[in-house]
């Protein structure tokens, strides 16, 4: 692999790493603030227009199960998605030394990331249920990036097979 391409890949991985870590920390701080865990600074709101300044979660008995799923799901699936993306990038770089470019395990990481992204998007799109008495929502926007990721994982899987075929051609 050309040195410039390798250096570019390392630089992109570093940027992705920083973004993922910052995003994960922000998810924890944001969730903790709105849930009133470790700070009373309620000005950290969920997205644009999801809640007014100073809103706190209103736990309602009739939708408590959904509220728990959406609150903890957004936090956990969001962090898992960031972690999986970072893992994918790091493993891709580490494997370069051996001359291989595509790892079979990375295919499963991408599929897992697609599932996490879908669930995170669902929780994120329905965040209003934590504060307002509203209905659950499934939109086309929440399906787009997971589907793209899943399609990419299928293409990556093909690349793994072609790469293995090439490696075992003497």
């Amino acid at each position, binding site marked *: 692999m050309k040195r410039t391409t390798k250096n570019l890949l390392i630089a992109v991985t570093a940027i992705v790493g920083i973004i993922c870590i910052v995003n994960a920390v922000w998810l924890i701080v944001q969730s903790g603030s709105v849930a009133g865990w470790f700070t009373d600074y309620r000005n950290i709101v969920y997205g644009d227009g999801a809640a007014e300044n100073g809103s706190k979660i209103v736990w309602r008995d009739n939708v408590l199960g959904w509220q728990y799923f959406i609150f903890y799901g957004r936090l956990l699936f969001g962090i898992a998605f960031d972690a999986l993306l970072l893992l994918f990038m790091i493993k891709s770089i580490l494997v370069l030394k051996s001359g291989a470019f595509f790892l079979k395990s990375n295919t499963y990481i991408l599929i897992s990331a697609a599932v996490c992204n879908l669930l995170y998007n669902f929780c994120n799109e329905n965040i209003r249920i934590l504060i307002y008495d509203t209905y659950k929502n499934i939109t086309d926007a929440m399906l787009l990036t997971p589907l793209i990721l899943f399609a990419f994982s299928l293409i990556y899987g093909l690349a793994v097979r072609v790469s*293995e*075929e090439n490696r*075992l*051609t*003497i």
Partner: protein
Amino acid sequence: MAIIVNIDVMLARRKMSSGELAAKVGITPANLSILKTGKARAIRFTTLEALCRALDCQPGDILEYHPDSH
């Protein structure tokens, strides 16, 4: 795989080691081992030519077809 690569037989006849053959053919000992153990998915004509030249043999001397062994 139905195609068997009989390099060991030719190596014994020519009294050559695997390492020597790998060096003459220009492939790594690991790749030669992949060929010998039947794990290879394909062989390039250039590699086959180099093998035949190094072992002074025909492709039919090192490649065998067994339809029952898939």
